[in-house]
């Protein structure tokens, strides 16, 4: 299993990540043994700060020759030039083509890997107009783990062969997009007990399907339509009208209009498969807008994820209507 993970990580890095890194940074990371790179979650770069690799829940600093170091003085310090070069490589010298993404603070590169950005905000009338002097980048590795939703599937399908609306709850970097992707694939594909269903995916950040020219580059099953780069609220309603899916799936609900769209979709006879940030139900309940999702029991099932002992750990599966825990990690 680890061997497969090692190969996958190395190939993901070579195929998608190294092409957007300046050659000297790629060379530094290449020195790290494949066994360690198999756990690579993030590559963090900050101007005048060490190059950090997040492996599982810990991070490591690297020297200019790729050795793991603990001393800050021995670590390779990223320069503004490194950051600018990465942005140049990601945008292919066309930052203007990523105006909307820059406003939202992230870019998605081939393979669905998200690059988070931080810098100086330019405001116009109190609203964010653009981001300049970008000083931090966080390259997050997106992984396709087929079968990671096996444990969840039996709990989210009703006896009438219908998907029960399900909300995946997890803090950032705990594998909710990976789980969501696998659930979409399994629902779309179907199995011996469950007939595959038409799934519509609203992929606002191009993370779920990692579309290239509108075509998914990951396996989302044979009955999946993807609306790429479209705001969730608009996209959900648009898909219902245009593609009549049985299930609408989307990532990271958060805004008032997202909640409104979920309510409208549920009342249109569509099941929703979505994710939200939060450590548990109580945290989500305390959040503005999305708290309403829990309060009014819009969803039938909650799946709570954590990164203990490892990323993607399913903590609980809860029946929201009966307030009953259907499955819990020991």
């Amino acid at each position, binding site marked *: 299993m680890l061997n497969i993970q090692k190969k996958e990580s190395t190939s993901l890095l070579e195929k998608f990540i190294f*092409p957007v890194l*300046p*050659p000297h940074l790629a060379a530094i990371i290449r020195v790290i043994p494949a066994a360690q790179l198999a756990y690579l979650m993030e590559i963090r770069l900050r101007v005048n700060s060490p190059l950090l690799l997040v492996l599982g829940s810990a991070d490591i600093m690297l020297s200019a020759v790729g050795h793991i170091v603990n001393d800050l003085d021995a670590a390779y310090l990223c320069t503004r030039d490194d950051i600018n*070069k990465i942005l*140049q*490589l990601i*945008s*292919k*010298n*066309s*930052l*203007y*083509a990523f*105006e909307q993404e820059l406003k939202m603070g992230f870019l998605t590169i081939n393979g669905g890997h998200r690059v988070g950005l931080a810098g100086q905000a330019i405001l116009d009338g109190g609203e964010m107009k*653009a981001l300049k002097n970008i000083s931090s980048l966080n390259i997050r590795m997106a992984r396709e783990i087929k079968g990671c939703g096996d444990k969840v599937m039996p709990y989210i399908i009703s006896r009438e062969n219908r998907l029960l609306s399900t909300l995946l709850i997890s803090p950032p970097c705990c594998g909710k997009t990976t789980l969501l992707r696998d659930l979409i694939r399994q629902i779309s594909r179907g199995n011996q007990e469950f007939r595959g269903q038409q799934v519509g995916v609203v992929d606002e950040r191009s993370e779920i399907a990692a579309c290239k020219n509108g075509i998914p580059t990951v396996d989302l099953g044979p009955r999946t339509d993807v609306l790429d780069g479209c705001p969730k609220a608009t996209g959900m309603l648009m898909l219902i009208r245009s593609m009549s899916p049985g299930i609408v799936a989307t990532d990271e609900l958060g805004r008032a209009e997202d909640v409104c769209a979920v309510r409208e979709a549920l009342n249109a006879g569509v099941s929703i498969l979505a994710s939200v940030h939060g450590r548990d139900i109580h945290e989500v309940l305390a959040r503005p807008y999305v708290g309403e999702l829990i309060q009014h029991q819009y969803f039938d099932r909650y799946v709570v994820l954590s990164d203990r002992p490892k990323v993607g750990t399913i903590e609980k599966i809860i029946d929201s209507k009966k307030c009953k825990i259907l499955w819990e990690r020991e």
Partner: protein
Amino acid sequence: MWLKLAGGVLVLVVCSWVGFQLAARCSGRPQHIRQMVSCLGSLKSYITYASMPLHEALMQCTQGIYGPIADFFHHTAELLEGNGGLSPQQAINTVLGDMQGQLMLKQPELEILSILGANLGQMNRQEQGNYLTMIIEQLEKFEGEAARLRDLNTKMYRYLGICGGLAIVILLV
């Protein structure tokens, strides 16, 4: 006698050819600037309206234009696509170096092209549009001046070539 005649004809032909070449350069400059303006106008549209990636926009903006100016944009696009680490300014300067002699542009236009590369792809769409408009306006000024020089000098260079050749032949004979 025949040798002298042949030599005279040869001198006359060479001098006339030099004169015509200079005249062609003179009349080619405004044409190249006009083509450049037209390509930059299309480039601006592809960037501001279609948000097309730079290398694709550079490739598309030459539609209907042939010759060295179209080649200049194509080669720049190919360099940018083939070598992601290259900045637009580096790509433009490389192509300008490679195409020296083919482009009938003078120092002011070449400087403008080099400046163009410095900010290409680094701004948002609106700013990129404004910047390209500024570059186009400057090139249009140069085009006006180049057209004036063409009207003034084209015939002069041709006559100078022929007459200069004749004068040399007469002096030598």
